[in-house]
């Protein structure tokens, strides 16, 4: 994965997607796809190659946790890095995501630096 790889941003709030998109641009990722809930995200994931998923936790129809579980259960997608965005570091939420195989989580609000750190950290793990 490099800076031209496609990142999927999943959030039901369009402004939030824009916020994340802007932050990603700041750290050099220009190739970004968006989805407004888990279901749409799965469609995107199946229709094109996505190298990295950044998903909100709380969404209608299909939550971030359900999306994570679906991705991990899918033979083709299970190796896709997954970064979960949460509002607070609520222990329950984080633990559930961790158990379901999330690569890392990030707490709102975050800066471009923190996001960069999390993404590069995850990518480094996958390279091994």
């Amino acid at each position: 994965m490099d800076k031209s790889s496609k990142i999927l941003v999943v959030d039901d709030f369009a402004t939030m997607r824009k916020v994340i998109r802007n932050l990603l641009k700041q750290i050099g990722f220009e190739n970004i796809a968006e989805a407004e809930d888990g279901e749409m995200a799965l469609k995107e994931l199946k229709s094109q190659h996505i190298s990295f998923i950044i998903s909100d936790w709380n969404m209608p129809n299909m939550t971030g946790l359900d999306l994570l579980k679906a991705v991990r259960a899918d033979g083709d997608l299970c190796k896709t890095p997954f970064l979960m965005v949460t509002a607070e570091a609520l222990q329950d939420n984080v633990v559930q995501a961790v158990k379901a195989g999330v690569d890392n989580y990030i707490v709102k609000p975050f800066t471009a630096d923190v996001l960069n750190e999390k993404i590069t950290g995850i990518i480094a793990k996958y390279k091994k």
Partner: protein
Amino acid sequence: MKYEKITSIINDIASNFLCLDDLHVDVPTTGIFLNQLESLIAEGDAHGVGPLSRIAHGLSILLEKMVLNSVSQEEGCRSFEKGITVMQEITSSFEKNEYYDGDVDSFMESLTALTGVAEAISSEAYQIPVTDVIPEEEQEDDRFEVQDESLLKDFITEGLEYISEIEVNVLNLEQNPEDKDYINAVFRPFHSIKGVASFLDLKEIRELAHNLETLLDRVRSGELPVNSALIDIILDGADVLKDMIESLKEVLEGTRSHPLRPDTAELQSRIQNIDRSVDDDGEIKKLGAILIQDGAISEDLLEETLHDPAKSTTKRIGEKLIEDGKVTPKQVSKALRKQVQQTTATNTIRVDVKKLDDLIDMIGELVITQAMIKQNQTILKSSDRKLVSDISQLASITSELQRTSTSLRMIPIKQTFQRMARLVRDLTKNVGKNVTINLSGEETEIDRNMVEEIYNPLVHMIRNSVDHGIETPDERIKSGKPEKGLIGLRAYHKGGNIVIEITDDGRGLKRDKLAKKAIEKGLIKSADNMSDHEIFKLIFHPGFSTAEKVTDVSGRGVGMDVVKQAVEKLRGKIEISSTEGKGTTFATHFPLTMAIIDGMIVRVGQEKYIIPATAIRQLLRPLNTAYNNVVGKGEMLNVMGNLLPLVRLNDIFNIESAYKNPWEALVVVVEAENRSKCLMVDEVLGKEEVVIKGLGDGLKDIKGVSGGAILGDGNVGLILDPESLFVLSEN
């Protein structure tokens, strides 16, 4: 072997731990460990290896703390390693059927010291207090800096949309308090608003949204019930949030220096004290009402059961009735199912309204161009059958396209209705009346641009119905009506219009008293030859509403002339029907869209004009004798006993007309603002639905016309605006 599985899990954990690069457990590995420990706890419990489960549990909590960064990786890893060793010792001694005499307690104590979580508390019950997590970084600063204008703009638009969604869903929630989907639907927008507000550094908005979200989270977890106190707090909270977000808009527009910082102390204390508020039985009656409707119980029985002090108040009405053997559980579940409204989930995409308007405009142009091609002489004369059939195919495609494009801007009236429901709720509280609102036809569609326009007149009428239509509970009981009044809001399509009916079961209009008042006011001479409808219409007369007293006599009249004007401005009309003592119905007819007008095409000289059909009262060719030239008043025509001023359109627009005398020409009686005048025209060409086109910035202030339209023959016609035309004719 008995402990084979346990040994293998512990070995897996140990080997995973040894594979760590340095003393750092990353998130995915934490996940693996947690799952392994979970199965270890299950195995340990199953085989009665208590100490093992204890340690595994302690290690899970440790990992959770590490992943949340409240325990450092280094310290955590050392403890974890120790834990693995202790667990290995335990299994090996158990395998040898020996008693483990190592010190589990001291290890657990060291774990507790590190994590701060006592052993007895399970990880499920333990939650980090939410307030502690919010970073209290910034200091009070009165200056407001716009960080990223485009993001802020998006946030304002989307945030406001979300808040109106909250309002709708809160009311749904009130009706279906058990429905998790509705709780989530209210929870989520607050959550999203909070998330973005935190990025945009909008501290106050974030805080309030956060507190409301926390409140709803408690509802979601079943800790708090859905009651009217809760609904009130959410609605009030949404209002404050809305004000704050709207003030941001003003800051961006430059009309405010810094955003609104409302005093939320009262609201916050209500949120804190929600546990102590009393539940009312609004929701319970609802189920009861359905049971009555189904014929399962009688109204008396419902009242009796509701107010039976012997019964516990915490029980729901359905349970009580079943307990008493009055209804079967099946009947209750059927009623409950009726309560649940199915929200239809549709796939949607957000599109800029401007783009949509442009698209609809362009399609309008396409339709007209298509019509012109079809009427082109060369094509009409053409003997090429292929060309003719292709053209007619083009015509049917374009008309289908036009139909689809107009439907794009159509939205269900639901949201407006829900706002009305909320209004009724607020109003009844203020005036001490007891009213239920009954909505139907919420799926009826209307042009998005019309929605805002019809809001004010509807609010006015609802207010009137609550204020003056519905009697006080005492009065209602006296006249043998149910204590609770009923206001019905119904929408349906009729012709090219949407009809919105507001029905109340209140005191109704009193014909005699209205007539008497009108005679006193000099509005009419006698009521003998007037129909009920005509008498009722008097309440729309401006003279009627100015008299305060009339309100008490008629029960109506406050500002109804304003309503009528607003409705007419939208080219709509109002009809009243009423039975004294039974109630009143106001039916307002609005056009579905402001983009199309139903007009009468008239010709004056070589020019064609369009008169809005809603303004036309009559079409006639006057008799020679009906014409008078009154000194000081100008030319008048006697139309059925009324002297109406004559307006010569050719004079106003300074063009040549075919006729000099009104008895040779045609006269269109047009009404606006409660006045009628006669417009003299050469010819009436027919009725047509035309697409309204603006006249552009340069011509938009011209008096007498409100716009232009391309007629079926491809020519341009001006749309007359009776109101300003009247003013023009008087100068």
